[in-house]
């Protein structure tokens, strides 16, 4: 989707190495999220951010850390990659640019195109 980009799109890494995935938005949205998607599990929330330097854990946060030093960037780090972290990772944004509810504004998620990570 226009306004949200993920990098890299594909990555193969070795077990035990650190990996950082980047999500960049140009929409000035307050909320950003990292999801992973695996067969049979749908999308599961890893971490999310509700502002610069404000982050919180999702349902599958073990083994992951995040950072948000500026509004437009949300980084997901696997400190020591394991094979169980092989997955497709999606970044999403939500909210109004000003963070204030706007009547009739279509809220919800806008997703990036995903990063396919393989840990060997």
């Amino acid at each position, binding site marked *: *989707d226009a306004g949200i980009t993920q990098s890299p799109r594909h990555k193969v890494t070795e077990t035990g190495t650190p990996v950082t995935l980047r999500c960049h938005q140009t929409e000035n*949205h*307050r*909320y950003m*999220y990292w*999801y992973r998607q695996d067969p*049979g*599990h*749908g*999308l*599961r*929330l890893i971490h*999310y951010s*509700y502002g610069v330097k404000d982050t919180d854990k999702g*349902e599958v946060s073990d083994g992951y850390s995040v950072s948000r030093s500026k509004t437009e960037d949300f980084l997901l780090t696997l400190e020591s990659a394991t094979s169980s972290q092989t997955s497709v990772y*999606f970044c*999403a944004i*939500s*909210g*109004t640019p000003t*963070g*204030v*509810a706007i009547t009739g504004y*279509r*809220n*919800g*998620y*806008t*997703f*990036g*195109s*995903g990063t396919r990570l393989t840990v060997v």
Partner: protein
Amino acid sequence: LAKTTQPISMDSYEGQEVNITCSHNNIATNDYITWYQQFPSQGPRFIIQGYKTKVTNEVASLFIPADRKSSTLSLPRVSLSDTAVYYCLVGDNGTGGFKTIFGAGTRLFVKA
């Protein structure tokens, strides 16, 4: 956070109307209902959103009964390109945060 329940899969034929129902018994007063569509190797994309009664746009209709404990996504005259996974989500639309939990979705397969 409100959880949702949907059928795991559905089959249909081209030209038919498809209705996918989602159950969300613990929906909160401020929650909106939003449906997403996901194709393989892509992120989910917004289809339609509503709070109560009926909402219609160029691709779908959303029916929400008065108690809001369920909702039905209606896709008129589906085509092969509508084969995808459809997710129903509920979440607070008021403040901008839309923290919610995705279920496994409904896999719709449209046959010729």
